[in-house]
Structure formats: structure tokens, C-alpha cells
């Protein structure tokens, strides 16, 4: 059954022709997702299970029988666990400081601490190369200081630089989740324990830690998922010696051309990420039903005692150093040539040189990226809007009544559109490679493949941004507008649009940024002569020579700037006051 569009539901008229049209419109997101998400995943399933036309689980079990693959799986799990524990330990005191103290510059620190989360992985990797790579800021500095021949710190292509980048990347996730939750814990809980005779140490272990557990498990699961599916950081910083499952899928498919094994590994990756995502959703639900929200003023206190000053100051320094140092190094290094300050790397981005390793100047990579991001944004926002409209309609139809067909439809669509969150980038890339490299949909050469894949990846974020807006449109508001004399479109323009334009903008910015920084899927789908910015950075970093290195950093800085601006825009429009945008 298809629900009637706005005007009909208001007046009670039902026109069969319009009903069918509305049905088709609302089915578009489902058709799109079936074709560009379900079908590629299905192709992986088929190739992984039935490589030669008959069921063959040899490739599937290889992950647990082959010594090398077993080591890959072990490394994937191990580094994810260590990264998660390190991030939690580092972010814990910082979360406490942000949740419980009031100090000058707190908003700036909070914003800075959230920044890494929106940065593309290639930018993070490039920033770490610029900081502690062989010719990074720290090594250059040490070499100048002690007049050394070679770089004293050799972390490049070690597990340490991978862990450092993961901590940098996920510190903000933990900090944000934990401090928000901590802020809502009433201080009277710990004070009650104190009054009952518990020492500060016992208060922490008996009350604070157990109360924070939902937020800790939730944050830990999320960080584990990110590190488990880590791709860009590993290939750029780890080099050929290190491989996560994600990296191995990529190598099997594109370096060794072993698609069946890649598909089999991908199947495992799908299973792992789905399980992890399911765990995360469960923990997240528990975080949602937290103790009632309390005002900031009631829990934040001024920094007074010397001990508190050292603690707060120390954590602020840690946050600024941890987050700021790599980004600072990236910017500084991108302007430093052999003889001091230079803008040569930036200029080189936009000049065509014959000896360039590229077929085309890197400036065109920027243009490619922007075009792809714009198309991906338009696609994912339209999809998100149609889906959100249908979803809220269906939800409302069953409001207060027992679940019927539309409820299931709404829940199904909601879950379907969230699935890309639980699918790793490389899996989607591989899926497209397999599904659209053969009939009946032999579209791999199409320029639209990449924007479509990015749109699929971005739709969950768009949905999360716009759904609250749609849910906020009360039928009573529309009815009031109608009674006051507004017609069908007028109702939409006067009631719906003002409520959803901000969420739409936020969703659009999300989609644009995600597409711009996307790496794992792009490496499968981008055509060699049309690289995107992250791919160009990756290639530059893989080539020797100061100019390539400098250009990689320069392009990373540009990408970082765009993402930072987008991030600030999202923060502003999400929490900002009412007014025109």
C-alpha cells in the first residue's frame, strides 16, 4: 500500500493516478539501493561462494587455514584492539576535563578535538608523514639540532606510526562520546558515594566507572570498528609490510587479480563489520536512555586548586599537541622547500609539467573531486529526502496503532539505508568492480560509478541529518496552515521547508565532505586518467622526490581546509541559532 501525498491526506481526496506516481517516487530509493548496494554485495556473495558455477567454500575457509591470511586476521584484530585501548586511556582524562571543568577557550579546544574525525584518512596519513616521517618536521628539527646524517626517528612503515595515526583519528570520537555522557551524570552520584565513606579511588571504581560503562563500551566498539576496517592509514603509513583484512582484499583484487579470494575475504569482512555494527547499535541504545539531561552550569566547575590547574592544563596541552601537532606539521611542511619558505608545491599543483608522473595536472584531480562530490551530494540528498519523506509518512500512518505493513516498510527502509555504515569502503569498491564489470550492468567505464558509490556511502549520514527535521513536522502544523488558507504547495513551502532546510544543508555538507575524502572505494573505481584528490595524494606519497612529497602535502592541506570549513559549517548549522543561512 502506498500512502497519499500531502495534499490528499489533508483533504481526504485520493486520486489513483497520483497514488501510483507517488508510489513510484517513494520506491525510487529502494530501487536505487537494490541496484547499487544489494546487487554489488550479492555479487561478492556469489563470487565468494560459487566462483566456478558450483558451491566452493575453499576460498572462504582459506582465511582460517592459510598461515599468511591468518596472520593478516590476527594483525587486523590486534592493532584494532591496541589502538582502541590506547585511545580510551588517552581520551579518558580529557573527557573528564571537558565534562566537569569550566575554563577559557574550552569551546575552541572541543572544536579542535573534534576536527580529526572529519578529516579524510589520506590527510591524516599525510599529516603523520609530515610530522614523523623521514623528512618530517620532527626529524628535520632533530637533524638540524644535532647535525645528524640520517633521520633519528624511523617510525615510517612501523606499527607505531599506524597506532599513532589511529589514536589521533579516534581520540575525538572517544572524547566526544564520553564527555557528552559524563556531562549528564549527576555529580551528586559521586558525592553520595563520598558521603557514604568511599575514598576518591573507590568512588571512581565503584560509581564513576560503572556509570560510564555504556558510553565506554559504545565508544570502544566504534573505535574498534574504525581500526578494524582501517585502509588508508595502513597502505600509506604501513607500506607493504602491513595488511589489515581490508588492505588484503584490495591487494588480492587489484595487485594479484584474485577476485574469488578477494570476494571470499570480503564476505568475512561483511560478516565481521555487521556483527560489530550490531553490537555498536545495541550499546548505543543503552547510551540513549541515559540519566536525564542536566544543565552545564550545574556540573561544570571552575579550575581552582593547583592540582586541578595542572591536571586541566596538562590535558589541554595533550589535546592541542596530539591533534594540533600533525596538522601543524602538515601545513608547515607543505610550505618548506630546500631553502626555506616556498609556495612551489602549491604552484606545481596547477601547472602542467611534461615530466609529471601524471597524465594530467594534479589541479584536475581537484576539479574531478569537486565534480564527483557535487554529483554524489545531489544524488544522496535527493535519495535521502525521498526516503525520509516516505519514512516519516509510513511511521505516522501507524502512529499509536498496532504495526501493519507500512510499519515494516518504514523499519525495513530505515535499516536498509543505514547498512552502508556497516559496510567497509573496500567491500563496496570490490562489489562494484565485480557487479558492474559484467552483463547485464556493464557500467564500470561510466563516469557516474564513483559518484553513485559515494552517494550510497553518504546516504546514512544524510538520513541521520534530515530525519529529525522531517519527524519534527507535526501534522497539526500542516493542518493549521491549511485551515488558515494555505494550499498544497503553499503548506509545503510555509511549514515543511523552513523546518527541514537546515537539516538538508547539514546532510548536503556531510555528503560533499564524505565524497571529497573517500579513498577505499575510489581506489577501486576511479579511472586512472581521472584521479580524485585522495588518490592523487596517495600516488604522490608513493613516488620519490621532494616535489612529489611537497605536492602531496600541499594537496592534503587543501583537502583539510575544505573539510575543516565543512565541519565548522555543520557545527554551526546544527547548533546555531535560528535565522537565515
Amino acid at each position, binding site marked *: 500500500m502506498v500512502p497519499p501525498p500531502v495534499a490528499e491526506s489533508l483533504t481526504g481526496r485520493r486520486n489513483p493516478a497520483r497514488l501510483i506516481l507517488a508510489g513510484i517516487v517513494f520506491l525510487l530509493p529502494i530501487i536505487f539501493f537494490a541496484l547499487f548496494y544489494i546487487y554489488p554485495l550479492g555479487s561478492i556473495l556469489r563470487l565468494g561462494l560459487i566462483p566456478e558455477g558450483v558451491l566452493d567454500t575453499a576460498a572462504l575457509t582459506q582465511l582460517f587455514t592459510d598461515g599468511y591470511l591468518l596472520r593478516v586476521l590476527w594483525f587486523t584484530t590486534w592493532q584494532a584492539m591496541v589502538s582502541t585501548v590506547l585511545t580510551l586511556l588517552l581520551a579518558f582524562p580529557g573527557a573528564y576535563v571537558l565534562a566537569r571543568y569550566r575554563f577559557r577557550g574550552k569551546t575552541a579546544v572541543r572544536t579542535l578535538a573534534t576536527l580529526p574525525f572529519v578529516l579524510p584518512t589520506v590527510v591524516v596519513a599525510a599529516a603523520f608523514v609530515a610530522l614523523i616521517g623521514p623528512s618530517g618536521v620532527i626529524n628535520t628539527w632533530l637533524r638540524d639540532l644535532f647535525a645528524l646524517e640520517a633521520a633519528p626517528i624511523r617510525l615510517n612503515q612501523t606499527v607505531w606510526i599506524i597506532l599513532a595515526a589511529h589514536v589521533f583519528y579516534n581520540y575525538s570520537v572517544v572524547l566526544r562520546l564520553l564527555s557528552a555522557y559524563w556531562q549528564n551524570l549527576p555529580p551528586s*552520584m559521586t558525592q*553520595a558515594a563520598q*558521603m557514604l565513606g568511599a575514598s*576518591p579511588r573507590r568512588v571512581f571504581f*565503584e560509581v564513576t566507572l560503572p*556509570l560510564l560503562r555504556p558510553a565506554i563500551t559504545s565508544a570502544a566498539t566504534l573505535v574498534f570498528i574504525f581500526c578494524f576496517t582501517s585502509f588508508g592509514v595502513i597502505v600509506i603509513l604501513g607500506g607493504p609490510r602491513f595488511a589489515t583484512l581490508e588492505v588484503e582484499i584490495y591487494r588480492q583484487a587489484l595487485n594479484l587479480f584474485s577476485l574469488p579470494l578477494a570476494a571470499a575475504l570480503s564476505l568475512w569482512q561483511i560478516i565481521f563489520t555487521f556483527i560489530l555494527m550490531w553490537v555498536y547499535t545495541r550499546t548505543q541504545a543503552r547510551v540513549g536512555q541515559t540519566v536525564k539531561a542536566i544543565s552545564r552550569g550545574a556540573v561544570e566547575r571552575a579550575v581552582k586548586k593547583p592540582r586541578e590547574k595542572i591536571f586541566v592544563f596538562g590535558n589541554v596541552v595533550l589535546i592541542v599537541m596530539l591533534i594540533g601537532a600533525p596538522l601543524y606539521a602538515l601545513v608547515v611542511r607543505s610550505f618548506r622547500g630546500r631553502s626555506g619558505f616556498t609556495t612551489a608545491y602549491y604552484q606545481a599543483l596547477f601547472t602542467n609539467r611534461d615530466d609529471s608522473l601524471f597524465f594530467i595536472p594534479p589541479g584536475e584531480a581537484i576539479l574531478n573531486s569537486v565534480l564527483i562530490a557535487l554529483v554524489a551530494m545531489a544524488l544522496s540528498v535527493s535519495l535521502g529526502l525521498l526516503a525520509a519523506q516516505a519514512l516519516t509518512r509510513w511511521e505516522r500512518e501507524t502512529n499509536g496503532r498496532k504495526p501493519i505493513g507500512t510499519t515494516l516498510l518504514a523499519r525495513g527502509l530505515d535499516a536498509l539505508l543505514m547498512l552502508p555504515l556497516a559496510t567497509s569502503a573496500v567491500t563496496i569498491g570490490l562489489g562494484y568492480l565485480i557487479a558492474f564489470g559484467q552483463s547485464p550492468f556493464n557500467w564500470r567505464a561510466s563516469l557516474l560509478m564513483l559518484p553513485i558509490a559515494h552517494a550510497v556511502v553518504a546516504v546514512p549520514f544524510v538520513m541521520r541529518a534530515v530525519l529529525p527535521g522531517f519527524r519534527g513536522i507535526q501534522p497539526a502544523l500542516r493542518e493549521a496552515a491549511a485551515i488558515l488558507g494555505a494550499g498544497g504547495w503553499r503548506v509545503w513551502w510555509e511549514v515543511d521547508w523552513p523546518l527541514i532546510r537546515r537539516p538538508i544543508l547539514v546532510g548536503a555538507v556531510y555528503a560533499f565532505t564524505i565524497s571529497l575524502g573517500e579513498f577505499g572505494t575510489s581506489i577501486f573505481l576511479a579511472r586512472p586518467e581521472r584521479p580524485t584528490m585522495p588518490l592523487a595524494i596517495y600516488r604522490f606519497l608513493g613516488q620519490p622526490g621532494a616535489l612529489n612529497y611537497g605536492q602531496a602535502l600541499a594537496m592534503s592541506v587543501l583537502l583539510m581546509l575544505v573539510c575543516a570549513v565543512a565541519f565548522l559549517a555543520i557545527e554551526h548549522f546544527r547548533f546555531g541559532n535560528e535565522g537565515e543561512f
Partner: protein
Amino acid sequence: MPIAFLEVDRIGKSYDATVYAVRDVDLSLERGEILCLLGPSGSGKTTLLRLIAGLEQPDRGTITFEGRDVTATPPHERGFGMMFQDFALFPHRNVGENVGFGLRMQGLAAGDIAGRVAEMLALVELDGLEAREISQLSGGEQQRVALARALAPGPRLLLLDEPLGALDRALRERLMLDLRTILKRVDMTAIYVTHDQTEAFAVGDRVAVMNAGEIVQIGTPQAIYERPATPFVARFLGFRNLISGMISDDGTVKTLIGYFLPEGPIPPVGEEVTLLIKPVMARVEVPPDLLPSDVNSINGVVDTVTFRGRFSQIWVLSRGERLLFDAPGDPRLHPGDEVRIPLLPDQLQIYESSLQ
């Protein structure tokens, strides 16, 4: 003079350089006494309680408990109990574990804890609810679990921070009496913070009224109600009729609405004063004779009459002043009636300060 159970000596606390939360407060408490700190929000009563608890550190002054200076003692070593406005029950522990928390901190054996928990739950009439989750309790039950938890470790002093503030009015009325009964049954010394005068009077042996970080009056509920020490206390206790005046040559108080002669000593001639007229309306004379009003009587016009059952509230307009009186039963007055209200000297009280 015997050493007081709890002695607070010139204690002060400010959150920033200009505003005092608590300003040089002195306080002493006898064993077994229940003292209520009564005041509007922001008067410093909660801060004073938290200073005594040790949850806040004073800027100056000392707190002495049973002759021992505890000013620098951390809260978990003071051996006081505390009940919070939001009850602060641990959601990750059940009723029994909440009540037994303090006992576990004391290092008691599991068997002893269980016995004491059962005893405490019996005291608050929640026998056998040990295994119940906190989220399954009603507001009133939570309040009683919080009380049981605070009492279980046998604190020598119990501090209560608006312990009924989170509950609705009807429940509050009932629980404030239960609370006093239980505290008296276990012979607990307690300090009870509230902004509700009814609650303070019902629970406290003594009441300390606070304003702007200071204790402005301390005494039994009867004494405070009988003679509010300042216009602020009078107004906070719900007295509405405060009029400014001046001591005239014959020693009466001259106001816009007539001359008054209260009981007790009179300030010097020419002094500006504030006159409190308590709302007891013993007698109303209708219509008034046309003579100018005598000393201690008010001529006016009835503005509104609100019938409250056992009594009626009557607003009387007299030369622009609105005065509120309580008359028993139904005085059969109507808006517009001209009335003369004779007052008794003990209904009147003067303060040697002009009204702000």
C-alpha cells in the same frame, strides 16, 4: 559551658571575588537536634550544608565536630550521612546494594551488611525490597531508600539537601512527618535544607532563616513565627502587610494609614521604621463610624474576598495600601464594603529599618 556537638565558626565561602555564597556564619548544634536551614534559592543554605559535609572547602572559618576540627577532613572521613535532592541512588545497583554501600565501604562482612540493610529497610517500611531495581521504585520509595542508605552506616550527623524537593506536594506533606518520626526514632542529629516554610516548621526543632549568605534569625518555629527578626524574614514567612512609618512625638508609629502603638520598646522619636501588621482579623466593624480612626485601627474598603473554608482572605484597600487579613469562617463581607479593623498591640511589630 559544654562543648557543642557541631560548632561552625565564622565560616565563609565565595565563588567569585564579589559574591559571597556563605558569609561568616556561626552555628552550633546540640546532639539529637534537627535544625532546618530555611531560605530562598541563592541564600547560601545549600552551600552551608555542603561546607559542613566537606563537599566544598571554605575560604575561611572552622568546623568543629565533637571538639575536633574537621575543616580539612575529606568528606569520606567525616562520618556524616547525606541525602540529596535527586536522591542520587546508584542506578547500577539494586535497593539492597544501595543501602549496603556505606557498610561495604566500612569493610563490614557480607552477613552483617545483609542484616543491617534489612533492619534499615524495615525502618523505612520497605521490608524485603532488597532485590528491587532503582528504576522500578516510585518517587516516594526512592526517597525512603535514600534515607535508609544515608542512615545505614550509622552517621553521627545527617545532612539533608531538600530531600523532598523532587516530589509532588501531596506526597511531600505526608513524607515530611514520616521523615521527622524516623529521625527522632533513631535519635539522629540532622541539618535539613529547605526553601519551604511549612516543611521547615514541621521537621525542625529549630529553624535558621538564611538570606544573602547569612543566618538572619535562628530559633524554634514558634519563636520565629511569633517575632520575625527582620522584614525579610516576615516577608519570607508569608506576611504581606509591611508598611513604612516614622516614630512621632507621642511615641506612636505614624504611617499613611494611621497611628499605631505596638507592644514592647519603641525606637527614638523621628526614627524611620517598618511596621508589620499580622493578618489576624479578630473583628470587623461595618459600617465604620465617621470619626477619624483611633490608634491601632484601620479604615478601608474591601477589595476582594477569597473563601478558603476554615477562614477567608480579605484584601483591604486603605489610602492606596493593600493589606491582607484572615478572618475565621465567612465574614460576610463584599467588595466595596467600608470597614474598620481594630488591631491588638501584639499583632504589631516594628523594625528599625526603612523598607527598600
